[in-house]
């Protein structure tokens, strides 16, 4: 293992985050605050408590997941796409590093950024609502696994994309709708029966549900299923990446 290289890739990727620290912190703080003003106070005050949890509180896990998912994907995909785009990838390809070391460096940095982001969102949320986390260990586990899984997914997109449209199309057309329709801002029990069934095909539901359980002990599906789904998604991403590695997919000519 070339640990020196993993470390330098990781630090290099984190570099941009620190350089634009103000922006990195300000944007999640502002967007979280806006969600609370709009959904938590304005609309939320007219929505009944969900299984004993006020609406403002109820949306916290979903809101966090929304940001974590989209940011993990965009950070990781952009991280690997950009050197391909500018050509600086030549250096990584000619260095004594394996594909997996590159992967750990890039995905590790993207996941770290998402974790920091989640912390900022939760901290901001706690200014608006009284946040009590029932199972901190599980909360953290769900969060870390999700950050890693979706950073891996982003890495795959970044490798696959050969132009900016492709880079953005999957997050825009698939991930964002899945997150909004996956019970981030409502309980699926509020939906008509047919739509409840349809929603069960949405993988994001399982993430949000499990994560929400770790806060309030309420969930749409059982926690075991949620965990299984995260691991399944993680395994699929690792499998795809393994295949990309074997074939040198879109990196080497």
């Amino acid at each position, binding site marked *: 293992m070339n640990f020196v*290289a993993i470390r330098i890739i990781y630090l290099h990727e984190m570099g941009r985050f620190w350089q634009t620290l103000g922006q990195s912190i300000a944007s999640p703080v502002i967007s979280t605050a806006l969600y609370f003003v709009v959904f938590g106070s304005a609309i939320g005050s007219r929505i009944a408590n969900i299984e004993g949890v006020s609406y403002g509180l109820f949306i916290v896990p979903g809101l966090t997941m929304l940001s974590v998912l989209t940011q993990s994907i965009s950070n990781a995909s952009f991280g690997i796409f950009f050197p391909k785009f500018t*050509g600086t990838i030549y*250096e990584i390809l000619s*260095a004594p590093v394996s594909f997996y070391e590159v992967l750990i460096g890039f995905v590790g940095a993207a996941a770290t950024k998402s974790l920091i982001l989640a912390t900022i969102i939760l901290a901001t949320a706690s200014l608006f609502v009284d946040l009590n986390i029932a199972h901190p260990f599980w909360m953290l586990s769900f969060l870390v696994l999700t950050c890693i899984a979706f950073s891996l997914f982003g890495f795959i997109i970044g490798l696959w994309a050969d132009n900016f449209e492709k880079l953005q199309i999957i997050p825009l057309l698939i991930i964002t709708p899945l997150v909004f329709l996956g019970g981030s801002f409502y309980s699926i029990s509020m939906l008509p029966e047919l739509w409840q069934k349809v929603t069960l095909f949405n993988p994001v539901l399982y993430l949000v549900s499990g994560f929400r359980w770790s806060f309030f002990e309420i969930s749409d599906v059982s926690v075991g299923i949620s965990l299984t789904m995260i691991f399944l998604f993680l395994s699929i991403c690792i499998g795809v990446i393994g295949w990309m590695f074997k074939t040198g997919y879109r990196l080497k*000519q």
Partner: protein
Amino acid sequence: MNPIISIKDLNKIYATGFNALKNVNLEINRGEIIALLGPNGAGKTTLISTICGIVSPTSGTVHVDGFDIISDFRKTREMIGLVPQELTLGAFETVWGTVRFSRGLFGSKRDDDYIEKLLKDLSLFDKKDSEVRALSGGMKRRVLIAKALSHQPKILFLDEPTAGVDVELRKDMWKIIHDLSSKGVTIILTTHYIEEAEEIANRVGVMNNGELLLVEGKDQIMENLGKKQLVIELKESTKKIPSSLEKYNIELSQNGLQLIYNSEIKDGETDISNVLIEITNSGLLVKDLKIEKSSLEDIFVDLVRVES
């Protein structure tokens, strides 16, 4: 001594089906400077990229210091530094940051003293905190060299180091290359300029259409492939070449005032003196003599033209 790089039957067919390297065989000696010469699209960059691990070979093998570039890629790549043809640099990094990154990427421990010295040698030290995008093209080229040297490689590849560089900077570049070579670094560079190959390389390899046409010391090339042309101007025009001269490779100019003798250089000798004696014997009056020698450039142009 065994070669530092040994390339055997190397072929590259790109995904498009394009055959960019055709059975390339080449041994590069320790400490030499070898120039790969060839027109656009000859396959120079493909060859270099394959050795460095950016392009996967379709077939054939490459060994660097005895290690296979695929199964022992860590060992081979640690020994190699690459300066790419394009000026590819991240936009928001500083000179210092990007060079330090390269060193780490190649697995070398942080060593600020070495990087400081490197930047000073390349006249970059006063720019160390500048963002690379704010540098001129020539400066960027130096930054790329610094990055390639950041892990103290034994072998340095320079893909067209002097393309788009002014005369002064080109001389600087040659000096940098000579200095590195005197420290024992093996250098492989590509170029379109014959004069550059003539100036700095010990050996020259000529590539065209994915083939390595020849690799030889530049003196040998001149000796083996060079031609001398003797132009004899006559006082009075003549209608035909005297029969005693027919056995030589001689042409008569249209106006009958010039005899042109093309001599091949064999073992450093020619038939020039015999030709002159025969001319005098045949009674022709000589007004003037000119000897023209083909340059490496003529040889190169001939080679590539015959091939295509």
